[in-house]
């Protein structure tokens, strides 16, 4: 087995036992990047020199007998909308093409403190808006399972990097499904925690009330490990929650006898591919065999979720992205003759089409005369959707559904049809609106492409969600499949 093929946990054990060095491990990842990056295009920025220097530091610590974190010396990647001190953070936008933040996001700070080794910043849909990573201003990332297919979005770069062995794990961000959906399409474990579980400080905002940092790993154990490192209250983020963080890895076992699984009937309707549906339901059967009880639940406002999301997220985005005005940092157009002209020209030239589309939708939905009809109404529906989940979790511990309606689609297939693209996140959006945690794990293949099973957990109960995912994973072999490149 090549070094880059290992899981985070395997690599970590070898480092701690000093069977391999962090430097060797990092070099293997950098070599792999060199080998496959021309085909996959996962990264916007590769931080080779910094990574090698850090790896050497970690090796010295380990040699000196210092106690190090499980993440120490493990190469990983960070989505390019998460701020990294001194390293370009572009949001895959012309607007921030040369933006170098003077500070680290809290998650980056935590990973650095744990000795993690960042090898690069990954490609994404511009400002995290999209479901295929085709909206990047800089490059198009390909699905490592089939280079003609999309990796999903908006964290497609992070997903592809892990799926292609270019990182042991990667950080993404999830507003309406941007971690879960690409995880499904690239055969990875992708987790979006409860809103407030992981600090958003340093994550460049898209929809503040929805955004969460998410995690891509090769298996559930790795996911549990990384979540434990990242979770917790951050005094720099007032919306982060003061809720105890469990040692998730310790909670992972196969005993499902106390687990009640809810199957929401609204997620197995027309529009969901038959093979996807079958793979997910087969997965539920496996969990039943392990002792779980299964019952049908109803989330009656599911069909309003997309409409609600596409009012709220763009509304917040229109405000969040207003700071990109060419005054203080980022792109500034040339040849303006007034302040108004500076703003208009800068934003016209700096933003891509999808971003502009959402800014316009949001500006419209928030404007006087439309606020009540759109924004306020959407807030009300959001409350109903939230209540759906609260009610459902009265009876069940987790909810299982498909992550994406289908497997990865062709590059270019949906770019001219925004509605078709928006439907990609139909299964992930409701739980994001509710703020409950969710994850995707591989549960099958169709035409050689991975299928994702979505497990939705109750508020701050990532432990149970991970436990169910782990049980499924331990009796199946999907996680061991690797994209052949």
């Amino acid at each position: 087995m090549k070094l880059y093929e290992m899981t985070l946990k395997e690599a970590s054990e070898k480092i701690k036992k000093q069977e391999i060095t962090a430097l060797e491990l990092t070099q293997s990842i950098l070599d792999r990047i060199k080998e496959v990056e021309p085909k996959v295009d996962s990264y916007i920025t590769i931080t080779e020199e910094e990574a090698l220097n850090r790896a050497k530091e970690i090796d010295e610590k380990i040699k000196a007998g210092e106690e190090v974190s499980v993440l120490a010396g493990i190469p990983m990647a960070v989505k390019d909308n998460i701020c990294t001190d001194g390293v370009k953070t572009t949001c895959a936008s012309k607007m921030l093409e040369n933006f170098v933040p003077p500070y680290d996001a809290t998650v980056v700070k935590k990973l650095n403190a744990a000795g993690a080794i960042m090898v690069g910043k990954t490609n994404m849909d511009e400002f995290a808006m999209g479901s295929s990573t085709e909206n990047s201003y800089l490059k198009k990332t390909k699905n490592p399972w089939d280079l003609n297919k999309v990796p999903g979005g908006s964290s497609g770069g992070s997903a592809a990097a892990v799926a292609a062995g270019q990182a042991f794990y990667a950080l993404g961000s999830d507003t309406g499904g941007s971690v879960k959906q690409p995880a499904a399409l690239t055969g990875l474990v992708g987790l979006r925690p409860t809103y407030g579980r992981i600090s958003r400080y340093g994550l460049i905002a898209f929809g503040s009330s929805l955004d969460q940092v998410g995690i891509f790993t090769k298996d559930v154990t790795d996911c549990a490990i990384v979540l434990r490192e990242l979770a917790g209250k951050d005094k720099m983020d007032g919306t982060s929650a003061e809720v105890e963080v469990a040692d998730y890895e310790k909670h992972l076992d196969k005993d499902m006898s106390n687990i009640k699984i809810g199957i929401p009937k609204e997620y197995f309707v027309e529009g969901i591919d038959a093979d996807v549906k079958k793979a997910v339901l087969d997965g539920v059967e496996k969990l039943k065999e392990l002792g779980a009880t299964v019952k049908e639940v109803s989330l009656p406002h599911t069909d309003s979720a997309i409409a609600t999301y596409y009012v709220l997220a763009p509304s917040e985005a229109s405000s969040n992205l207003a700071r990109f005005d060419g005054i203080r940092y980022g792109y500034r157009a040339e040849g303006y003759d007034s302040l108004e002209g500076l703003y208009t020209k800068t934003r016209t030239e700096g933003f891509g089409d999808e971003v502009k589309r959402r800014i316009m939708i949001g500006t419209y939905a928030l404007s006087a005369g439309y606020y009540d009809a759109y924004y306020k109404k959407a807030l009300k529906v959001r409350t109903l959707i939230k209540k759906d989940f609260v009610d459902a979790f009265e009876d069940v511990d987790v909810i299982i559904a498909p992550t994406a309606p289908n497997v990865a689609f062709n590059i270019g297939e949906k770019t001219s049809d925004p509605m078709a693209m928006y439907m990609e996140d139909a299964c992930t959006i409701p739980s994001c609106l509710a703020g409950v945690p969710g994850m995707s794990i591989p549960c099958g293949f169709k035409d050689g492409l991975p299928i994702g099973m979505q497990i939705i957990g109750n508020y701050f109960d990532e432990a149970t969600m991970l436990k169910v995912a782990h049980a499924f994973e331990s009796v199946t072999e999907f996680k061991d499949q690797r994209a052949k490149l």
Partner: protein
Amino acid sequence: MGDKILIGLEIHAELLTNTKIFCGCKNEFGADVNTNCCPVCLGLPGSLPVLNERVLDFAITAGLSFNCKIARNTKMDRKNYFYPDLTKAYQISQYDIPLCYDGYIEVEAEDGSAKKIGIERIHIEEDTGKSLHDATGDTLLDYNRGGVPLIEIVSRPDMNSPKEAYQFLEKLKEVLLFTNISDVKMEQGSLRCDVNVNVIKEDGRKSNIVELKNLNSFKAALKAMEYEVIRHNELLAKGENTVRETRRWDDSQNKTISMRSKESVQDYRYFPEPDVVDINLTEEYVNDIKNKLPELPDDKRKRFMKEYSLPEYDAKVLTTSKEISNYFEEMISKFSDAKMISNWIMTELLRRVNDEGITLDDVKFDKDAFVYLLKVISEGKINNNAGKKVFREMFETGKKPENIIKEKGLIQIQDEGAIKEIVVGILNDNLQSVEDYKNGKDRALGFLVGQVMKASKGKANPQMVNKLIIDIMKNM
């Protein structure tokens, strides 16, 4: 019913918290440009605001001082607009649920009666940065002020004369100072005031509301309002009307000048700030602030009148600032003649302090010295005129009063024997006057006293002199 003037005020006051509203940057005036800035107050991508709880304390203190109700469940909102001094292109403010609402400030109406001017709301928000225009016409930006906490106080249009509005401002300023909420320095921008004025004629005709901005002192505000009322009346008299617009006061020309016409209302696209968690206040929290409220100027004034039997005028002067009222109360804890202290503070101390343009903290002598001076005067050890001389020197040099009195030999002669000696001498030299007095000419006594005082160089105790003259004359 005559013509009616309607005036409403909108006041922004910067709060005197140590740090900014959403980050740990220092809140200070006058630092080097762009030195009190961090990713949060600069609104850098990815940064997040975290509400400084002290801002709530300050704003609630203001609300309670102005008799407002306090919202228990409220939130922050975003006010979206583009401007270079606004780092995020939105201001975090409060929209539909202000922290404090429905209050009032009491002023004296034109007819002398007490009048309550309504306060519609007080909300918290962040200040913006500052644009500086250099000689070449370039605009430079200083973001030190960005994120400084503000309260915006919005009055109802209840003021019916510029004088009432002026009083409202004075009272507001007093309370903000007394409660240490703001240093209310208009010239430094820590208090900013916009005025809305219009006039309704007896026949029902109304002038359009005009907004006055960039007022840099209360005096300027008063003059601008007076100017506007006259302008509105003149236009209405001519059958014309005012333009709905924003005007500024020009101090050099003593008139208001049009800044811009009221354009179509800006759409700020307010919506709840998702980055700041909702504000939910417990009764305990609000009560705690209520219990810690200092005595406010109006209450203090009433108490001074009652407790120390001071006239209203004195009580008003002594409560114009916390420093003065504290000074007075510290004095009275050491010396019980309230009226005497009041007189000396008003006529000597405050006059000198104001003339020198200093604060009470800068006064060179301490209160014990001042008390000593008042005591020796009241005990008749030195007379009032001598006391003023001593005070002047204390004020200028900070020397102890007992030393000044000794050096200048100002102490009165209290020794009866010594005075008697002088009296006997004077009486013997002025037998005609003694005779006159005995014949019922009272004026002669005054003359004799004057002669004795003169002979003692003004140092003899006048009461003693009087008594001795009469006693000795009886036996002559």
